């Protein structure tokens, strides 16, 4: 149990550093999601099942989903801008 919890905490820290250093936003979000899931397991180890359910649903579910959809929108806007720039040049 002790070993598992230490391992999870280490994973959380490593993924946090990786999120700050990685260039690609998509990778950053996936790392963040993994970190959130690890956090849900830590909550179980801390004997807080309520928090585990909420963290799994909110942290690695809805928050990540919203970040994903924003990123997708940004990508869409970017593409839209390029299309319009090209049309403008023609």
């Amino acid at each position: 149990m002790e070993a598992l919890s230490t391992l999870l905490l280490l994973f959380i820290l490593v993924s946090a550093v990786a999120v700050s250093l990685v260039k690609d936003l998509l990778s950053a979000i996936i790392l963040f999601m993994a970190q959130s899931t690890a956090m849900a397991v830590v909550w179980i180890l801390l004997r807080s099942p309520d928090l585990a359910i909420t963290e799994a649903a909110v942290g690695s579910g809805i928050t990540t989903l919203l970040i994903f959809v924003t990123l997708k929108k940004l990508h869409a806007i970017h593409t839209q801008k390029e299309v319009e720039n090209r049309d403008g040049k023609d």
Partner: protein
Amino acid sequence: MLSKLMGHSEEIAALILFGIGFTNLLLNRNMMKKIIGFSMMDSAIYLFLASYGYIDGRVAPIIEDASAPLEVSAYVNPLPAGLVLTGIVVSVSVTAIMLALTLRLYKRYHTLDIDAIAILAREADPE
């Protein structure tokens, strides 16, 4: 020293995570990274808070048999979990707002870099 560190492992992890999140929120120029940093910072505080509710060898505060005599020392402290539950929902609301702001800023200025946005906003509208 090492045993002391091990005894505080959850808090130490939480505080390092807080440092990383705080730095990202303050100094990362990318808005998305800022938001992720904010989420990490908040969950670090929750980890810190909840780790103090935990007491070795006790179980979650859910009573399984209401008719059995109640043994108070069998359960961990329920209050931190209640506070954290409140906090998690607060942080997801704030995250959603920051994401919406980012989207609007990107629609207007076509960049996620907060410094670039600052320059553009000031040039377009001097007041």
